[in-house]
């Protein structure tokens, strides 16, 4: 009888390792004389040099051969050795399940199991009793941003097959979407980041029967979030029962890993993903006394085990180790035999004679190449027709043709519908909470007289941050009791009054004392005098953090016996920056502490101002629901209220203006085409905060919306960063003299635009 043999693939050991080496160590500890052969797809897979392996096979890269031939070659390696095969690469396993279904020597799940765990894994989650974090498949940065802004930009962008990138802002989001699409092909999945402790469950199964499982809590992670140390534990009986279901329903064979995060705020366990193979930390479980690779191989082959499972510890750490390696492995010899670098990407820029060391291979097993080969080819997207209402808005605004270019275009109808929506939100909040609710338009966002006039006619309030803004609103017709004054510089150039405001919110303890003095002297009259609360858990330069003990004492002292008629509390932190969930958490924490503080000072709050920074894409129901939740939390803590205010700015005016431009040039670049227009970041200064949708019109044709892609619009300035929009597909026929319309340019794009390069 020949020596029992196991073939392992995916043996790279780097910052983001494959499991092959850990599998080898675990199998060795069960059978010291087992023959182990390694398979990988480039000599730069570092584990190929490890002494654990009796033989290594460097297979041709995924770009070269026919995929069926590659699978057949691998099967022939396994069969000729009379071996069984444990895959360490997700896509290789998926491909083998598809091309060699049911092969008894390939210890991997059947194709149907891959379908059950495909991201975002809802089928698997329901079997496992786990929640799935909110997600959306995103084609480009516009729909991606619309999703991300609701979650405070803290989202994961996941490749179609593999890899997840955490992002925390618009620029990172755009880069991640473009990068993952270029690396893996296909669609990208966006998923909300869940704050909490990460856990993994690793298991082995044969033909739908669970052979064993254990749980691991990550205790140290790398910058990429990969496990560096962990604590291993038994799986609790309910979780085990659910895992038995998953394994049975999918007829699972092979290793697997369920990655879970338990949310700190709610305690809810969420599924991150299910991996169709053993994880790279598998040997950590073996050291804790659960040798799953050995159980799998023993069950599949009937080879009797030589060594018993033994618990060395309940935790593990990783170490870095230098091992001897030959010239192909260390990169002295270029991997040029296939004309590709070790990443299987473009030809290497750095050769053996380069004085600069090559970067460690990020994907030495060539998974991106395989992923792109497996992705379905997609037709180039074409410009999209506009809905009737959008087309009518534009037709109403662009009456004269031709017109000046570039030009800012005002959509009065869009503003009116925004005001209708805000009035509806006020009614919804009032109906749900019983507290009279109004909004105060943030004048600085866009003080255009047409906007102020429309707000005035609706009977709404206006919010200002300086005496000059207050005068401008007075000139526009706002009476003093419809003006809310806030900000850190509210008394800058104050003429001594007397002056009247609907509400004044103080930004610091000093500001509170100063304002109380002005009120006592008779220079200022305010219906509501209040304090802006800072968010306790996120950095902000504004407001008072009453959760800080010294501020708590100072505010209590300032308010004790102060001549405040109606006291207000304001919480203003942009939900468009931190997300709706974090906003509510910060608001509730601040209000909870403020409520006890007011009790100590023996004063009651009458007015609550929920501030601005609401994501412009929120519908009436979403914004209303958020304000209702906040108002209810406040009433619970503070008691009944007379009034709720909120301060929309961008939310109202961002969609109400656009920038009309003319194409000056269309050029070919290394990364596709770019159109140069006669506008620039001087007309679109807020280009970095949100991706402006772009419409295109050829002479005599209707406006159409440009779809996502990898092309750009450049501005007219001689500045590298004058690229007001990237991530688009330009239409085939776009030419000099065509027009582009940048939508959603009615907020800071309008108020902060500047004259430059004209």
């Amino acid at each position, binding site marked *: 009888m020949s020596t029992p043999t196991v073939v392992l693939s995916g043996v790279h050991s780097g910052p983001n390792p494959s499991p092959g080496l850990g599998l080898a160590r675990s199998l060795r500890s069960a059978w010291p004389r087992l023959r182990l052969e390694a398979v990988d797809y480039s000599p730069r897979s570092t584990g190929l040099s490890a002494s654990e392996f009796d033989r290594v096979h460097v297979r041709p890269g995924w770009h070269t051969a026919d995929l069926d031939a590659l699978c057949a070659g691998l099967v022939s390696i396994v069969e000729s050795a009379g071996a069984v095969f444990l895959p360490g690469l997700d896509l290789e396993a998926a491909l083998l399940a598809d091309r060699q279904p049911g092969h008894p020597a390939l210890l991997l799940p059947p194709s149907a199991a891959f379908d059950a765990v495909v991201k975002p894994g809802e089928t698997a989650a329901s079997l496992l009793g786990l929640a799935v974090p909110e997600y959306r498949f995103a084609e480009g940065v516009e729909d991606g941003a619309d999703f991300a802004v609701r979650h405070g930009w803290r989202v994961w962008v996941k490749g179609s097959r593999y890899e997840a990138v955490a992002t925390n802002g618009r620029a990172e989001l755009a880069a991640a979407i473009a990068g993952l699409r270029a690396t893996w092909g296909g669609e990208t999945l966006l998923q909300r980041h869940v704050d*909490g402790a990460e856990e993994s469950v690793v298991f082995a199964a044969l033909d739908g029967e669970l052979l064993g499982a254990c749980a691991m809590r990550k205790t140290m992670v790398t910058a990429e979030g990969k496990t560096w140390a962990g604590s291993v534990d038994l799986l609790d009986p309910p979780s085990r029962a659910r895992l038995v279901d998953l394994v049975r329903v999918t007829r699972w064979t092979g290793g697997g890993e369920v990655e879970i995060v*338990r*949310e*700190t*705020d*709610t*305690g809810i366990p969420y599924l991150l993903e299910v991996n169709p193979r053993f994880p790279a930390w598998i040997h950590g479980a073996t050291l804790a006394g659960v040798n799953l690779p050995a159980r799998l191989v023993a069950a599949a082959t009937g080879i009797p085990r030589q060594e018993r499972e033994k618990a060395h510890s309940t935790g593990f750490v990783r170490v870095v180790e230098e091992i001897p390696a030959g010239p192909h492995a260390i990169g002295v010899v270029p991997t040029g035999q296939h004309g590709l670098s070790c990443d299987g990407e473009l030809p290497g820029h750095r050769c053996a004679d380069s004085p600069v060391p090559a970067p460690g291979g990020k994907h030495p097993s060539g998974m991106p190449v395989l992923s792109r080969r497996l992705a379905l080819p997609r037709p180039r997207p074409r410009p999209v027709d506009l809905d009737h209402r959008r087309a009518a808005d534009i037709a109403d605004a662009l009456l004269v043709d031709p017109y000046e270019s570039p030009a800012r275009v005002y959509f009065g109808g869009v503003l009116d519908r925004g005001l209708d929506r805000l009035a509806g939100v006020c009614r919804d909040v009032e109906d749900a909470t019983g507290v009279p609710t109004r909004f105060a338009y943030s004048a600085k966002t866009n003080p255009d007289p047409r906007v102020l006039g429309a707000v005035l006619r609706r009977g709404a309030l206006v919010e200002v941050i300086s005496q000059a803004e207050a005068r401008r609103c007075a000139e526009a017709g706002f009476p003093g009791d419809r003006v809310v004054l806030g900000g850190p510089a509210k008394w800058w150039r104050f003429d001594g009054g007397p002056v009247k405001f609907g509400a004044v919110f103080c930004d610091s303890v000093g500001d509170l004392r100063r304002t109380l003095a002005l009120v006592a002297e008779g220079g200022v009259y305010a219906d509501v005098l209040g304090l802006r609360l800072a968010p*306790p858990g996120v950095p902000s330069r504004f407001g008072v953090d009453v*959760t*800080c*003990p*010294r501020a*708590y*004492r100072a505010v*209590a*002292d300032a308010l*004790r016996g102060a001549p405040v008629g109606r006291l207000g509390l304001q919480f203003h932190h942009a939900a468009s920056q931190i997300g709706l969930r974090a906003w509510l958490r910060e608001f*509730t*924490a*601040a209000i*909870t*502490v403020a*409520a*006890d*503080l007011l*009790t*100590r000072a023996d004063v009651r709050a009458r007015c609550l101002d929920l501030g601005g920074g609401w994501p412009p894409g929120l519908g009436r129901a979403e914004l209303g629901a958020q304000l209702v939740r906040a108002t209810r939390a406040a009433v619970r803590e503070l008691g009944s209220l007379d009034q709720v205010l909120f301060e929309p700015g961008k939310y109202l005016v961002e969609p109400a203006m656009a920038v009309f431009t003319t194409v000056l040039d269309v050029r070919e670049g290394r990364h596709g085409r770019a159109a140069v227009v006669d506008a620039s970041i001087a007309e679109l200064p807020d280009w970095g905060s949100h991706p402006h949708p772009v419409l295109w019109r050829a002479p005599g044709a209707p406006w159409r919306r440009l779809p996502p892609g990898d092309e750009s619009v450049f501005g007219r300035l001689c500045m590298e960063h004058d690229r007001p929009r990237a991530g688009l597909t330009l239409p085939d026929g776009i030419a000099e003299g065509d027009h582009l319309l940048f939508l959603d340019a009615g907020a800071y794009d309008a108020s902060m635009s500047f004259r430059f390069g004209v």
Partner: protein
Amino acid sequence: MTVSAPGVPDHPPSTLTEHADCAACADTRSWLLAHDRAEATPAREWDTTTFGLGWLFRYFRWGPSRWPFAWCDVPSAEHVDCGVLACVAGMVLAARGLRVERVQLVERAAVEETALWRGRWLAAGCRPDWILSDREVYHEVLLVHADAGPVLFDPTELRQVGQGRDRPLWMRQWAL
């Protein structure tokens, strides 16, 4: 259990002074309870490792405190010792409805540690009398009666004590 020289402590656990008619003392207690309410999460209910008290360390670090120590000294303190932390944490946990007892311990320490701590306390003008010998220190913790059973909880290090090698040399319970 026995402790070598200079013997087991005979004093009761530390208590913070509460000044009569001191608004600052009352404000401090109010702040602590308000802040703890604001930090409540469902996950805290079964957290018998930290009891969700990590927020205290946003404001203080462990170090020398000058006794007698009053509630109104808390907001301006940068460092607080295990006695202050046990008082503060005990009040907060009791306000959550948990039954809490004060516990005095004598624990092992390394010679290097006690040397370092003695220097720190002397540099701050505080008496290092809690360092009983080069290898033994006095420490204050809490016995918290959680749903899952009693837990010997160290608010200074936000962890459970009394297991394995950490087993104290001596210990005494006081009902709060």
